């Protein structure tokens, strides 16, 4: 097979409607040649991981600005392990406190993005991960 097109699920768990970041990132990833499935608002960890399984996604990106990031990231990680997606990239963005970013690292979420981060950094991070995890 030639170049595998990176497939990304983007979702907003939780109740808030702040979807500007999620949509802008979705668009930027498409422009960078990735395939993006944007699930939209009010997703639960269950609906997100179900979609990731159905789509056989390489990357799951969560956008969370409500403060409930630890709960959602943990649950999505657990479900991904359970459903055989433990080798896929889980990342995301929002207002994630520095201390909580360290907690996320302990469950395998190496990097999340925040205010002021450049779109290119997100694209490069995903591409670099993909190069080192070719399936």
């Amino acid at each position, binding site marked *: 097979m030639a170049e595998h097109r990176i497939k990304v699920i983007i979702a907003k768990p*939780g*109740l*808030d*409607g702040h*979807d*500007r970041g*999620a*949509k*802008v990132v*979705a*668009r*930027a990833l498409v422009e960078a040649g990735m395939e993006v499935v*944007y*699930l*939209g*608002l*009010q997703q*639960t960890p269950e609906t997100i991981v179900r979609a990731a399984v159905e789509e056989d996604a390489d990357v799951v990106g969560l956008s969370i600005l*409500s*403060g*409930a990031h630890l*709960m*959602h990231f943990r649950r999505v990680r657990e479900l991904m392990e359970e459903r055989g997606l433990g080798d896929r990239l889980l990342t995301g963005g929002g*207002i*994630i*406190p*520095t*201390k*909580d*970013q360290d907690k996320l690292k302990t469950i395998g979420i190496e990097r999340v993005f*925040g*205010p*002021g981060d*450049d*779109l*290119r950094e997100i694209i490069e991070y995903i591409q670099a991960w993909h190069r080192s995890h070719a399936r």
Partner: protein
Amino acid sequence: MRQFSGMGTPEQTNLRYKFLLAKGQTGLSVAFDNPTLYGRDSDHPLSRGEVGKTGVAVDSMDDMERLFRDIPLADVSTSMTINAPASWIFAMFLANAEKRGIPFAKLRGTLQNDILKEYIAQKEWIFPPEPHLRLITDLMIFCRDHVPQWNTISISGYHIREAGSTAAQELAFTLADGFCYVEHALKAGMDIDEFAPRLSFFFNSHLDFFEEIAKMRAARRIWARHMKDRYKAKSPRSWLCRFHVQTAGCSLTAQQPEINVVRTALEALAGVLGGCQSLHTNSMDEALALPSEKAVEIALRTQQIIAYESGVANVIDPLGGSYYIERLTRDLEEEAERYFKRIDELGGVVRAVEQGFFQREITRSAYEYQMALSRRRKISVGVNEFVNADERLEIPVLEIDESIERDQTRRLHEVKERRDNQAVRTRLEALARAAGGGENLTPHLLEAARVYATLGEISEALSGVFGEYREQPFY
């Protein structure tokens, strides 16, 4: 001067209000938490982890009583940022005032109650658009008769702008929403001059100083022209586009947060020169967290300097006649008129929402804005230029503990035990019946609020009749 605030439990928010009133603030502005904004109770499964996080939780009139304890509701004006369940949150507010012996006619304030911009930008709805629009006109009629000093709707461009629109899109989409509400009220049999003077607007004030001033001037011109010529309003008060302004939250940076004080001051000045009736200035730390008390104080002091020291508030429309401002105003007006035409072609605001028109337009602008920053065609001081190389971003943990959710849920269960549950059932059934028919729903909502029916119970009674709305995700 009206600073938006709300956090944690009603008691904690009540303390913040007293603090702000003591500092010289003249009105209150309530921020609700996410479950409340969706009309859900604090013990709903989807409320988990969100109770009291980005605002105050209100489940029933009991919470209203705690929220406004010892605050003289007849003397301050109260603004509530609530949309989908606005009518029943307001019913709880009214029931509380009634219980305290404050006549409805003395109450002053504003409900945001702008559901159209929810579909366009903010995304907090419960039902499909038409039942929500009916609830809004029902409330407009009720307030005309019983709460005459209340602004029943604040037609909001703020969120449209925060979602990433341009100034022209904010202007055009907000006023198009305004026309849509006017047309619904006319269809419900109201006279234009009865309700138009109580319509108010809410705009963003972003970084482009002159463009923002021009946008606010254009809004006044367009509104007056359409009210007079298209809707035949006779009272000059109906022609007025009165608006609140908030500085742009999305313009604040997490990097070098102190310089946000300067950004906010410039945006606030644009709002005042643009002729706003009231103003909210954001706090410097809001790109990172809910604001600290110190940051809130500086934001309020910023307004006080503009109002009491700078002299700019002594004159109306000081930039009128400037060749540059007049030109910008005209350009924005024309661009807005082109959008109105486009929206009409799509079948009106509701149809355009359903087709994702606004959503796509806004996402495109948000993307272009972000790309301009990424390619440094646009400068953001401290972010993509003039960066402090040794700055390491420390995002603080939001100090709201999980006990708020437990306390709030326990209070809710106590209320449900204490109240007359038979009366609640009867009122909710009457409400559902009325929803199925054509009568005004506001008195039924007030009846339900009086007997401590909860927010979620009322939402469910109504969604049983109206159904729920799901959006296709557009980007």
